[in-house]
């Protein structure tokens, strides 16, 4: 079972929910947490994992053998990203623009283009207690998060429960991270910003055909917009977390909610049970 924890808006509590859910389930299930927010990964702050391995994430970029190249310009014509250009007797490559699709090297009539790896990030893994932990880190100055996210996902086992902590937003890195999940938790807060971005996130998971439910965080200050929206859209609110200085303080110090306030464990287990029921129900429906 793969559960993603996403939100359109940043800072609504994804990391708080993902880490507490993972810790709460770890006594009962085999759990792996994947930090897919490779631009700003934070799960390690709360889980303090013991890292045991790492692997670079590379994009394969072209290298031109000037001895073989006859400057025909085919490579530049086939590259949709303008990552390779032929100017007179010179071939210029722009590795930062390259998506590593391989078209130029495959289509070069002179077989003058080979590929070399260019590192854009790293994937690290290890354990937090007996919970599996994987995170990706995008190298500072690099633009493309999806290749790093893809690598993170490859390191998940297909057994037990996989929790993915997703970056904020709704565009390509988010989709790459959420894709393939059985369920997506959308964390939001009861404010106009929270509602606006929740609606975008709902559109995203519906496009991917993944069932979703809402965790409403910082309930207390705010308005009823999110609740009304969820009712109209028939999206279950699976858990509410109050605006509470003690909860905020724990998070600020890098302590997971269920570690600081163990009474929350049952609620996160209940959250999982509800999700499991919804996923099972959906799978039964699909089989029929």
């Amino acid at each position, binding site marked *: 079972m793969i559960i993603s924890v996403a939100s359109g808006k940043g800072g609504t509590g994804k990391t708080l929910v993902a880490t507490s859910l993972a810790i709460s389930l770890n006594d009962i299930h085999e759990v792996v947490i994947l930090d897919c927010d490779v*631009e700003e990964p934070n799960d390690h702050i709360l889980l303090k994992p013991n890292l045991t391995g790492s692997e670079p994430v590379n994009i394969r970029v072209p290298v031109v053998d000037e001895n073989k190249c006859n400057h025909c310009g085919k490579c530049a014509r086939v590259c*949709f990203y303008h990552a390779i250009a032929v100017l007179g007797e010179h071939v210029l490559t722009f590795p930062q623009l390259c998506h590593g699709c391989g078209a130029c090297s495959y289509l070069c009539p002179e077989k003058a283009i080979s590929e070399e790896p260019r590192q854009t990030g790293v994937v690290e893994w290890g354990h937090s207690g007996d919970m599996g932990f994987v995170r990706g880190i995008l190298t500072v100055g690099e633009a493309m998060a999806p290749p790093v996210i893809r690598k993170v996902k490859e390191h998940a086992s297909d057994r037990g429960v996989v929790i993915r902590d997703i970056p904020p937003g709704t565009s*390509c890195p988010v989709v790459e991270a959420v894709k393939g999940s059985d369920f997506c938790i959308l964390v939001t807060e009861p404010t106009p910003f929270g509602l606006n971005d929740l609606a975008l996130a709902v559109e995203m998971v519906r496009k991917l055909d993944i069932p979703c439910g809402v965790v409403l965080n910082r309930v207390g200050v705010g308005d009823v917009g999110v609740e009304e929206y969820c009712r109209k859209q028939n999206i279950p609110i699976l858990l509410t977390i109050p605006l509470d200085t003690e909860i905020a303080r724990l998070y600020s110090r890098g302590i997971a909610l269920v570690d600081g306030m163990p009474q929350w464990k049952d609620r996160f287990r209940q959250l999982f049970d509800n999700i499991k029921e919804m996923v099972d129900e959906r799978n039964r429906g699909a089989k029929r």
Partner: protein
Amino acid sequence: MKEIVVLSGKGGTGKTSIVGSLAVLAERKVLVDSDVDAADLHLLLSPSVKQHQEFWSGQKAQIDPDKCTQCGLCQELCRFDAIKDFKVDAVSCEGCGFCSQICPVKAITMKENLAGHLFISDTRYGPLVHARLGIAQENSGKLVAQVRQRAKQIAQEQNLEYIITDGPPGIGCPVISSLSRTNLAVLVTEPTLSGIHDLERVLEVCRHFGVPAMVCINKSDINIDNSRKIEDYCQEEKVEVVARIPFDNTVTEAMIKGIPVVEFSNGKVSQEIKQLWNIVCEALKDNAKR
């Protein structure tokens, strides 16, 4: 003309609430929302859209089943696993066009893709350029570049002094596009360990692209020890801390009313944001002299 971008690394630290207030405080400016994934600034500025432009970008492969011989070459060569059972998964397709070039029977064509929308609006506070990237779309950086381009045009035409940009979270594609060649980045952080970690990463990005940065600590009183850590870190890094905004429910109350917090109350939060803007203005003047 000076371009100021507000970034944070970590999401939800208060970028939009601060930019909304700068909209009130700054004179002769264009406002920009470059968080094209999940834009919120319009919720504070109640814009009326004057111009709307489609953002066509990138392409998606399409296989003609009548022509396809199911040879499987495209599936084998696609590095994005976007072709399965001789069908293109538009979400996975990165639009590289490789498949369309190697298909032996020319069954694959690339279709232009409507990736989003760009808006130019009027607000009570001046012009606003904002955008909406389609769900699951790529090229957010390119849309941000277009948004900035339009803002610059407006600033030039109307002889405006500032472009103030509400940036996206993270450090990737749209952040780099929002940041490059701006005059100043204001980094909004919060005194949580995550906030500090993410501040360090986004400051590194600013350095990488040679943009000077200043720091604003929001919700500064939720953890005094961590706030002090941020102050120490900034001192070490020679980055000025320009505001220390306490946690205050008025920020949320103003958001619910749909108005910038400096118009809603004149408390400590507003005082700090006013101070932030004064320091930013002075710094930009000093930069210009140098």
